[in-house]
């Protein structure tokens, strides 16, 4: 058995090396850069001193925490009742509501921001309608718009986590409380709520993390309400020369927050989880017509409002436009024709980059999953940490770290398409690893050992025997990698250069210059590119898509 040991060890070392140079080293590099004065090149705490000296930077930090906190609370306020109603009561169209309720997760957040601008901006559709009635809309720009978009796009995380916890509760638990004389409310607050609390907390942490790392939404509708992720980007990229030290310092502060959240999640929240096997699922109650209608109204209303913006984007894409001015009610395919004839490159780029990084990610994901499941030990624990680390890093921070590290020296990647592929596969491979490793755990190692003992070399045994069984998990992981890469903005915006602009960058820039018509055309192409594969996946394997994210 010497030989298998060697072959897999070489692969293990190579994998660790890739992760070290793609993840850890760039982070250490900007950590170091944040302590180096841009003027003198000597060690200096100036960047951090500047951060605490000026009210401007502290305001960015405060703003980040404020919008993330508020959005998290509101997402809980929507997500918990949504999950509870769907799990406990009979509602017409329940399955459709449940499926549609998870859709906001996979749609790019900044497209949601664009749609709300089209609807609620002062020149927006609602605002114009209300103006006719003599009502003035409050401005959507600033923190209100950011919180609105975050809440509507992230509440499904709370919904998914809470509903899986709710479904795991055994009927006997609540029945025992009731038979001991507790009222309905008392049962809810003393039995049901404590059991689902860890799930609520997990959901809240995920939402808070996604809010604080988000780049597209605050930059589009924040205007002069600046948050940390946007300011780090601003310091790094500037037409007139950036400041890597300050960008490094801001990145480190953001990283401290996101890493702190992840550690808290792993070591505190996950440990508090109750393990339960629900032998007797809770009965789904039928209520009287009026309460049923009210509950239905709430659930359907939430889904409608959360998805309405995407319909608006699709309608805008076929609306006649003249420069930045849109003529709603008059239709034309010109936006699409222009997207395909004048600037088709971003579409091709997006598909090329997503496909390439997914292909690399598949191979990488399979190898890492195998090492994690079959070669347990201290080294594989380290591997687990490293490979999951990108999930705890804000997209802009990862982008800044990679761009700063590989800007000069032996390996120059900044300004090439390779750095985009590298960033994508490092950031998205964890999704594939999650789906493949859970499948691999169910495969008995003796099948593989049988092949090896029959004389087939270990790596070939793996490819011939184990891989085919893992195929469903690999395909699911690949589709998730592909669609999330297509929708990626925060890392791309830091790393891309001109000719390699992706659809998300093109949409982002066109919204930026006020060209909503063409932006909506690209956005519609993007939305369809994301939805169609997911729909197929859902039909073919019957997977609950959002649960694998």
């Amino acid at each position, binding site marked *: 058995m010497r030989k298998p040991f060697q072959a897999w060890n070489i692969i293990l070392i190579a994998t660790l090396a890739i992760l070290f140079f793609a993840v850890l080293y760039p982070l250490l590099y900007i950590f170091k850069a944040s302590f180096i004065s841009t003027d003198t090149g000597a060690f200096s705490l100036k960047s951090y001193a500047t951060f605490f000296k*000026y*009210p401007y930077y502290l305001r960015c930090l405060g703003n980040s925490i404020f919008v993330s906190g508020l959005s998290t609370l509101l997402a809980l306020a929507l997500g918990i009742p949504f999950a509870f109603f769907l799990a406990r009561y009979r509602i017409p169209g329940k399955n459709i509501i449940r499926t549609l309720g998870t859709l906001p997760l996979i749609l790019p957040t900044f497209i949601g921001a664009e749609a709300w601008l089209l609807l609620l901006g002062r020149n927006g559709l609602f605002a114009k309608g209300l103006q006719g009635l003599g009502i003035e809309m409050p401005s959507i720009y600033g923190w209100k718009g950011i919180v609105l978009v975050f809440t509507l796009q992230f509440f499904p995380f709370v919904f998914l986590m809470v509903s899986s916890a709710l479904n795991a509760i055994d009927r006997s638990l609540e029945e025992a409380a009731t038979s001991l004389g507790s009222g309905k409310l008392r049962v809810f607050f003393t039995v049901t709520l404590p059991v689902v609390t860890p799930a609520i907390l997990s959901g809240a942490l995920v939402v808070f993390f996604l809010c604080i790392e988000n780049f597209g939404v605050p930059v589009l509708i924040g*205007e002069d309400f600046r948050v940390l992720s946007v300011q780090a980007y601003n310091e790094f990229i500037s037409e007139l020369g950036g400041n890597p030290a300050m960008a490094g310092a801001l990145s480190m502060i953001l990283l401290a927050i996101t890493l702190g959240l992840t550690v808290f999640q792993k070591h505190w929240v996950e440990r508090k989880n109750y393990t339960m096997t629900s032998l007797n699922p809770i009965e789904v109650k039928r209520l009287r017509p009026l309460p049923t209608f009210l509950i239905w109204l709430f659930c359907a209303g939430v889904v409608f409002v959360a998805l309405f913006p995407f319909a608006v984007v699709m309608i805008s894409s076929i609306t006649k436009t003249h420069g*930045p001015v849109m003529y709603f009610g008059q239709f034309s395919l010109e936006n699409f024709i222009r997207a395909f004839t*004048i*600037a088709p490159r971003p579409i091709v780029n997006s598909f*090329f980059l997503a496909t390439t990084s997914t*292909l690399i990610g598949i191979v990488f994901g399979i190898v890492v999953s195998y090492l994690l499941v079959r070669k347990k030990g201290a080294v594989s624990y380290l591997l687990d940490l490293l490979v999951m680390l990108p999930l705890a890093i804000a997209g802009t921070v990862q982008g800044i770290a990679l761009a700063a590290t590989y800007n000069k020296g032996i390996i120059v990647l900044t*300004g090439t398409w390779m750095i985009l592929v590298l960033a994508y596969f490092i950031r998205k491979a964890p999704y594939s690893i999650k789906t493949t490793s859970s499948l691999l755990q169910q495969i008995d190692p003796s099948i593989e050992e049988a092949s090896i003992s029959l004389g087939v070399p270990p790596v070939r045994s793996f490819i011939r025997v184990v891989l085919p069984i893992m195929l469903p998990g690999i395909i699911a992981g690949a589709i998730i990698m592909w669609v999330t890469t297509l929708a990626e903005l925060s890392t791309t915006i830091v790393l891309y250069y001109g000719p390699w602009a992706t659809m998300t960058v093109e949409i982002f820039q066109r919204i930026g210059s*006020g060209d909503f018509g063409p932006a909506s055309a690209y956005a519609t192409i993007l939305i369809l590119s994301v939805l169609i594969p997911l729909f197929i996946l859902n039909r073919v394997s019957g997977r609950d898509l959002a649960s694998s994210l």
Partner: protein
Amino acid sequence: MRRQVIRLLAVFFFLSLAFSGASQAAEVVLYSSNPSELLDLVSKGFEAKTGIKVSVVRMGTGEAMKRIAAEKQNPLCDVFWSGDVAVLENAKENFQTYKSPETAALPPGYIEKEARWTASNDHLMIIMVNKSLVKPEDTPKNWKDLFDPKWKGKIVMANPEKSGSAYAQVYGLHKLYGWDGLNKLIANAKVLDSSSLIYKGVAAGEYPLGITMEYAAHRYIAGGDKNVGIVYPADGAFMAPEATGIVKNCPHPEEAKKFVDYLISKEVEDEVFAKYSRRPARLDAGDTEGLPSLKQMTLLASFDPMEANRLEKEILAKWKEIILSK
């Protein structure tokens, strides 16, 4: 089945690779920060006229300068169009001399001493007004009027640290009214991160007044937006020239020269003016419907792009200090 999937993926992979790689048959390579539609207009026009294909690579001005400098040993780009003259001046060692016959129609100072860059278009810095939020009698007539405390929170301008055009505006105001004037403006204005947020915000009715470029404001007027108005300040609008240049040792020098001739020809400058509201640098250029001719307005004569370039670091450092302490 599996093999077919793999084959399909491979085909897709190579197809996208083939699509994305710049085609080798390109005759002239253009790096530009101008909007896609404008680039489409000139590249199709040039190809129709000369049969030379234009391969367009779109990227920001700063980025293009970095690229051109990085490709010095092995230039990939032929022509850059267009960026603030100061930006080209700072990078002029990467451009080769070419005095186009068309430059005879340009004003003095619009071509570099050794003809390493040629100014092709002008940007006018103006005040953009949303008429639904500002009464005609209240509409400011001068830059100076923006310093009035009654406009507090109602003016937007872009961050000069992030945008070259915003720096040109700050430099012009500094020239006219010094730090005293700028301090008053900062007290009134909201400083936004990009120049596009200014015209977008004013057009959307988020802000009554914005300091921006004429062409950006005029796109809304041309699109049929009745609320957008342009004020040409009586104390002097600023005119910032934008330039083009041919990269030193470029792969297609002869085609590049023809392309530069084409860009600064009267026909193209007039068309770009009419369709994209970018003012021609040529003295013999025609007028366009809906935009006043330069003779009808006051320009700040002492606005000097080269001086702006020299003072940039100093002005921006002081600017940042004021903003961070605000």
